[in-house]
């Protein structure tokens, strides 16, 4: 069976005044129908850029400079703008980080929902309204009919994120990309939103790409993990394997940094040192200055992402490579 989404050797650059900045440098992963993938990594690793590259919505100086994005058999990065528009918000839904900023303040909830349906389906406004109501019920919003006629500022943050999720559901997408969907919310509401997403992915058989800092959240919701560092994937595998037996020293650092058990809301950036900015990525392995087990080879050669056990596990590390027969 072919994959729902296949990202092959993706490369994203930002054309800045002083030159080109490579934000994503050869990222590859696959996602099957109904599968849930978590992308984790410190701030600036390129998680959001990866997500936006998939729907070809990179912010201005950014562009896809190489690689392929195959979705339901189509090469997204080659599609004309109008064809891409028909996919956005239709078979690929997006959920953003801050629900306070995602909804348009001057339009009612119903307007923002109905327009999404009408952009993709040839149905009447009344039918679109019914659909909106149905989806609001699906995300467990209290008094959904009343919500429809409200403006975003009349709803709480958690409520708004549910509305955003409902908007993503309107067109029954086969993939949802959620970029830190709970980071901006209260801890209790965070868990609610994650539970909701998990429930919906399972009942609707939707694929999910969950972008987050929060390893604990990822381990609750996803089946696979990709760990990103400085524009590259450094380790991937099943969530189970990566969380309980991390191979890459960076992933090990992330997990060790979690206080005791995996608690929701825990932050990642507690490894000594900082991730390099894109302008001065060190030669060889980008992680070597912060790595406890690095060797001379790490300063010279960029490690490739290769299989390191008999399962789907891959890591990009010279040291792991050596220890694997």
């Amino acid at each position, binding site marked *: 069976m072919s994959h729902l989404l296949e990202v092959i050797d993706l490369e994203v650059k930002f054309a800045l005044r002083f030159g080109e900045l490579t934000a994503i440098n050869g990222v590859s992963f696959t996602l099957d129908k109904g599968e849930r993938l978590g992308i984790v990594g410190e701030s600036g690793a390129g998680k959001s850029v990866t997500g936006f590259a998939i729907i070809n919505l990179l912010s201005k100086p950014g562009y896809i400079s190489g690689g392929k994005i195959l979705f339901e058999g189509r090469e997204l990065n080659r599609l004309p703008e109008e064809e891409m528009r028909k996919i956005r918000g239709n078979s690929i839904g997006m959920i953003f980080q801050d629900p306070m900023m995602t909804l348009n303040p001057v*339009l*009612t909830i119903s307007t923002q929902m109905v327009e999404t349906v009408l952009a993709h389906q040839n149905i009447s406004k009344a039918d679109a309204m019914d659909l909106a109501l149905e989806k609001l019920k699906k995300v467990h919003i209290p008094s959904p009919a009343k919500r429809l006629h409200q403006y975003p500022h009349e709803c709480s943050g958690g409520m708004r994120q549910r509305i955003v999720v409902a908007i993503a559901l309107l067109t029954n997408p086969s993939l949802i990309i959620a970029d830190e969907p709970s980071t901006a919310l209260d801890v209790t509401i965070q868990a609610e939103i994650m539970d909701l997403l998990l429930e919906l992915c399972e009942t609707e058989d939707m694929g999910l790409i969950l972008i987050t800092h929060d390893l604990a959240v990822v381990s609750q919701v996803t089946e696979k993990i990709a760990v990103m560092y400085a524009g590259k994937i450094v380790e991937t595998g099943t969530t189970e394997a990566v969380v309980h037996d991390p191979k890459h020293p960076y992933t090990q650092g992330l997990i060790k940094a979690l206080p005791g058990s995996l608690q929701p809301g825990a932050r990642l950036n507690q490894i000594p040192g900082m991730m390099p900015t894109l302008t001065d990525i060190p030669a060889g392995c980008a992680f070597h200055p912060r790595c406890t087990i690095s060797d001379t080879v790490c300063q010279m050669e960029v490690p490739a992402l290769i299989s390191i056990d008999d399962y789907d596990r891959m890591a990009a590390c010279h040291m792991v490579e050596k220890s694997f027969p």
Partner: protein
Amino acid sequence: MFAFILRRIIQAIFVMLVISLVGFSIQHQIGDPVRDLVGERVTPAEREVIRDQLGLNDPFYIQYFRFIKNACKGDLGLSFFYKKPALEVIVSKAPATIELVIVTAIILILVSIPSGIYAAIYPKSWFSRLVMAASTIGVAIPVFLTAIALIYLFGVELNWLPSYGRGETVNIWGWESGFFTWDGLKHLVLPSISLSSIMLPLFIRLVRAEMMEVLETEYIKFAWAKGLHRQRVWFIHAFKNTLLPVITVFGVQLGILFAFTILTETVFQWQGMGFMFLEAVERSDTSLLVAYLVVVGVIFVVVNTIVDIVYGYVNPMVRIVGTK
């Protein structure tokens, strides 16, 4: 709604009080009602008697109070030149100015909004660059130069458009209007273009800047991610949010526009309040000056109220506050 009206009334009272104080001070300092009344040929002693009779030797605050009392009754004194109540003279001139400002406002809206939006959406197009360059230069050109250039080109050289007066007007319930005759409309063209040229560069830049800012927001990115057609993203999602700050500035500038009519009306011999204001200054017709201030103050308050209502209509958050 009640809170809104109350706020408006308080604002109106405050504005009118300030204006009346300014107006009264002018009258008190420069005006000489005795001269207005009896002319120049009366001896100083006789004048002093008249002054006493008129209460002009009373303390300032008593006179001010009397002034307010009369003003409330619509009595702003007699125009020395026209020998008629000053308010009546002003009101008869108001339609000319109001119509000029209305046409100017329409030009401002119709030109600045489309070009501002276009320049924001395609910031690198030659049109945007041209507009930006033109508006930079435009700010620096004084109105009377624009006006004279327009008169020279379209009035004198090409002889396409009349360059002074209001032309033929129609009287509708006491309102002298130039809107309903071809001649009247033709006379409006050059003055309103000159008047709008003062603010056009500012407005285009404002619309462009606000729109560009809105286009960078998360909710616009989300609108794209929903797969909306770009017309919808630009003209519904982005434009409605651009309008809010633009309306506010527009309201303020519209009031200022009335001040600029003084110059424009004079250049075009436009028989409006601004034209009459300069005449009144030359003749030291103080009652008329004060009446002008008061009427412009009233217009200012009315315009601001309308702008506020429009703003509340576009911004849902204001409406909520208003209905509470």
